[in-house]
């Protein structure tokens, strides 16, 4: 079982991430699964009556807009970072939280390393599947790399200039 950072703690994770080319038949009935977006878009109705939990994952070029009407179906939305330096997922998470009001877990997957965590956290992520060859325990500290920020963000809706005493 993999271990991920969730709500600032390293925990065992029960979710199964299905690959991009997963078919409807490969989705187990009772396990908790995170399915690729394409599968949801094609077979959404068929996936509703399952016993297990349901999450969806967006690749970096897949748009939160495409699931904006279905958000209450998902306990988890994972956002993939194909490379550490690919910052599209930051925008995706912010849109999910700020524009579409998603309240469930937003999980960073892919090339996730500790030096992105502070930014991810501010964009609305609350779970991080740190790349398998790195320690999630070490990464925890980076959630707090900075003690102050200038901009508005998901967790701090007021920019510094509205808070400066």
């Amino acid at each position, binding site marked *: 079982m993999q271990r991920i950072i969730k709500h600032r703690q390293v925990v065992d994770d029960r979710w199964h991430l299905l690959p991009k080319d997963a078919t409807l038949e490969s989705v187990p009935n009772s396990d908790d699964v995170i399915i690729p977006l394409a599968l949801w878009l094609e077979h959404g109705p068929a996936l509703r009556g399952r016993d297990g939990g349901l999450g969806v994952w967006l690749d970096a070029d897949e*748009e939160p807009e495409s699931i904006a009407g279905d958000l209450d179906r998902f306990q988890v939305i994972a956002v993939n970072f194909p490379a*550490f*330096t*690919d*910052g*599209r997922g*930051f*925008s995706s998470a*912010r849109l999910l939280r700020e*524009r579409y009001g998603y309240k469930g877990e937003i999980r960073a997957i892919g090339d996730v*390393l500790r*030096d*992105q965590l*502070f*930014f*991810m956290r*501010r*964009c609305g992520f609350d779970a991080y599947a740190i790349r398998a060859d790195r320690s999630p325990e070490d990464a925890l500290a980076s959630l707090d*790399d*900075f*003690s*102050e*920020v*200038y*901009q*508005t*963000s998901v967790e701090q*809706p*007021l*920019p*510094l*200039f*509205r808070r*400066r005493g």
Partner: protein
Amino acid sequence: MYVYDEYDQRIVEDRVKQFRDQTRRYLAGELTGEEFRPLRLQNGLYIQRYAPMLRIAVPYGLLSSRQLRKLAQIARDYDKGYAHISTRQNVQFNWPELEDVPEILAELATVQMHAIQTSGNCIRNTTTDQFAGVARDELVDPRPWCEIIRQWSTFHPEFAHLPRKFKIAVNGAVSDRAAIEVHDIGLEAVKNEAGELGFRVSVGGGLGRTPIVGSFINEFLPWQHLLGYLDAILRVYNRYGRRDNKYKARIKILVKALTPEVFAERVEAEWANLKDGPSTLTEAEVQRVAAHFVDPAYKALDDLDESLARLDAEHPGFARWRARNTFAHKKPGYVAVTLSLKPTGTAPGDVTDKQLDAIADLADRYSFGEVRNSHNQNIILADVEQGELFALWGELRELGFATPNVGLLTDIICCPGGDFCSLANAKSIPIAEAIQRRFDNLDYLFDIGDIDLNISGCMNACGHHHVGHIGILGVDKKGAEFYQVSLGGSSARDASLGQILGPSFAQEQMADVIDKIIQVYVERRTEEEPFIDTFRRIGIDPFKERVYAANH
């Protein structure tokens, strides 16, 4: 200038801690070179031909004497005793050790400086007019807006890993000395008919491999909405800019692919969701920031036109220097002075630690303790009393800053090129020097008048060759260093990109080529006509004919 409060200071100190740990992890093998790369780049640290190069942010070019002394000390303690003023108003060190960089950053933090986002694919240092706040043709002081943008862009959580680097410039004057139309975003502060302040917004300008002049997508953005609108532009770019090919990743490519009209619509649609949100600027914040840029304690003085003219008559050298290296000031009795970092035989923009200390000293004695770096790689004392000008000139001559060539052919913008840069096709500094040596007759140089000559060692265009009236680009011809010449570029308000003259030249031909180009201009100009106007009138052909004429 802007002075940090406890919040600003804390952010910079947190950064030092963060980078110290990142460097430690890299040196301990916990981060691979590939993983460390984006982290060090976002801190201005390139690995170069001989050593790392560290680029230090000088927000919109402003430096205090205290900061200058710190830079001098860093040049002494961690480098080979000199620093380099970049074409984006920053400062670069060419020889620091990687291991020392966290300590250098800690030193910088003690004087409210840093290297945050000075390279890498993020929002870079915002630049502006080097005469901001003192120019007579200024409508709006751009500096508070630059500072507001600096804070907004510093560790912006959503835009930490853009498709490519991103540069913003702000202009608030009639002349555009900030070259806003060749920036990813160019902002021109304007007033509407009701006298309210807003910004004209240009996007998608840039140099590099695909030089493009930007397109204006908003003619009047009310100031309150500046940050929300920037968020909207950056979000569209972050989501849809190309990431598959780094040469097509700048926002200019996206704007061109969509067309500026469609790009503007996308931004409008995004902005409709962000408008009036918490990022909407308040009067109180703008005033808080602007209070740092109010006029220094100017004395009530009169212009000294007559006594200066008398000194001119007695000292032709002073007259020449005054004609080129001073700039009219909005306050009677004051003048802005440009220290030329372009004497022949020095790499354009290089200053030694001793010179930095000396400049700090001059700033304290002559100009309220502040200087500005210009994108032309010179340093400016912006608030000098006219009555002190003669004494200052004497000091500048001794220090080697009084070469009377500001804006002239030998005031060359030049990238580090093959002497330092691993991406170079060709050297650029020796070309600058060969041209400076050829044009060493001051009378002739003055007669030629205003002209921008810009040199880049490769198509990345760090030396802005596309927008030089004369541009020189290093190219690789079967492994040999060659130079392509273009004419007619301009980064001024009517920005234009240079046209290529023709086949490239060998290094030893370059001084002759420039000589011939200048001859054509001198023969064909009408009275008082600057080079760029003559070029626009007569076109490129007469230049081509002369330069490529068979040698008899």
